[in-house]
């Protein structure tokens, strides 16, 4: 009972503090914003722990953060091996290949309005399809190891990236293209000096979508067969053995790597497209 009351009281206090912070001058600054968001995150953890202890939830149903934390600390080698298998070998390799393929395709069809008109609606449609469904087929083709996971990721990220790149390359205004024409710029000069830089906001938009898809693809593909290492494998086996603390530990690693990957791309974006109105803000 004391845990429950404690958690709720903490919630109330933290919320009051956040309301005050958000209204104060601190809330306008970066530090203040981070503080408010962090406090909210901590509140959720405290509430979670309080509920688990207060209602005496058995750890086979929902372990509290105080159980998951030590599990992470003691299973670092296993978690690291899973991370390398799933994120580095599966997701990142697939992401790199898929990005390169989409880029090359976008440039290749750039000169053909016919192909663009044909591919864009199809690309848009395929982007909305549950491509993850290809996972079992690709596992059948490429085997259980990371190659099949990378293949799933390639297929998943390709179309959203292609659509964004083609749209981005079309995003220049008539005035800029006319200027290029008055200078007698060649096709490649126009591409590298005008259209590619102008396409960057679109390309990064696609990359951010692809970043979240990449991890989903790599993990789902492991549900259809994997060597005895990898985050998807760990989750499905530990759920079966009721080792839920390990499942949550893996989820924490997945969440952390997903956010870090996304954050990295967003950071590069803010460097590359510093000139875009959305980044100047």
């Amino acid at each position, binding site marked *: 009972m004391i845990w429950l009351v404690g958690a709720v009281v903490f919630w109330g206090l933290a919320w009051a503090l956040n309301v005050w912070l958000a209204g104060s001058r601190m809330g306008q600054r970066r530090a203040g914003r981070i503080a408010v968001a962090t406090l909210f995150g901590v509140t959720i953890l405290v509430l979670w722990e309080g509920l688990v202890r207060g209602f005496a939830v058995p750890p086979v149903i929902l372990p509290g953060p105080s159980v998951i934390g030590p599990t992470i600390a003691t299973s670092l080698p296993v978690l690291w091996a899973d991370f390398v298998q799933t994120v580095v070998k599966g997701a990142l390799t697939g992401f790199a290949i898929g990005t390169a393929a989409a880029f090359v395709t976008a440039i290749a069809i750039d000169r053909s309005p016919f192909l663009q008109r044909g591919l864009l609606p199809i690309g848009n449609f395929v982007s909305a399809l549950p491509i993850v469904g290809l996972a079992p087929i690709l596992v059948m083709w490429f085997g259980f190891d990371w190659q099949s996971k990378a293949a799933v990721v390639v297929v998943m990220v390709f179309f959203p990236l292609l659509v964004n790149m083609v749209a981005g390359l079309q995003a220049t*205004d008539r*005035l*800029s293209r*006319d*200027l*290029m*024409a*008055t*200078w*007698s*710029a060649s096709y490649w*000069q126009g591409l590298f*000096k*005008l259209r590619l*830089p*102008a396409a*960057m906001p679109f390309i990064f938009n696609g990359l951010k979508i692809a970043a979240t898809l990449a991890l989903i693809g790599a993990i789902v593909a492991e549900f259809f067969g994997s060597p005895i290492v990898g985050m998807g494998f760990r989750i499905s086996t530990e759920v079966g053995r009721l080792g839920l603390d390990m499942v949550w530990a893996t989820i924490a690693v997945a969440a952390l790597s997903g956010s870090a990957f996304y954050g990295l791309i967003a950071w590069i974006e803010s460097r590359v*497209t*510093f*000139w*875009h*109105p959305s980044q*100047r803000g």
Partner: protein
Amino acid sequence: MKDTLTTAQPVIEAKGLQLVFQTRDGPVHALKDVNLTINRGDFVSFIGPSGCGKTTFLRAIAALEHPTGGSLTVNGLTPDEARRKRAYGYVFQAAGLYPWRTIAGNIKLPLEIMGFAKDEQEARVARVLDLVELSGFANKFPWQLSGGMQQRASIARALAFDAEILLMDEPFGALDEIVRDRLNEELLKLWARTGKTIGFVTHSIPEAVYLSTRIVVMSPRPGRITDVIDSPLPRERPLDIRDSKDFIEIAHRVREGLRAGHADE
């Protein structure tokens, strides 16, 4: 420069020029039977209501549009050939600067495309920035500058590669009157210093009269020239010349020309 004035070498020659756009509602005669000769060092303004073909004519000179009849030559070449010889500096109504390049970087852009040497690029950027009085802003980004300054930068960009013809399509149309007056004055100084041939599209009668050695009055449907007025004003023109009798007379004649164009409809 005095010589070029007296010998009057033709730079741009249009004879019986036609330009028809095919649209869904049928053909549109953007230009019909346009005859005009522009000499070296002229400052020619094109004025008329929208749809009279003034912008189309300017774009045809720069080979951005292709005439469907008649002839158009630039230094005896076709507009396309002249473009490949980098004969034009074009200034649009919007500055059209790249937001990801600094002011200096933007001015350097055509120089990179045309393959100037690195140190030559730097020297030219410094020179034209000085010409448009933006020297202190080389490393600013366009979005950090006011509209008037951006337009000055775009003029500097058009000047950077020393094209002999400067084509300006309502370059000051989006600016307020005070900024516009200043830029008009500066443009005249620039013209005097560089001796370039300038084609200038505008909606404003005072602007056309103040700037030009010749004023071409056009009217729409089909787009055609209704009057060409040679300005008797001296080349040296302070702003208050706009209160002189000569100025008011020419402005009057331009207005009459525009009205006559409308009366035919």
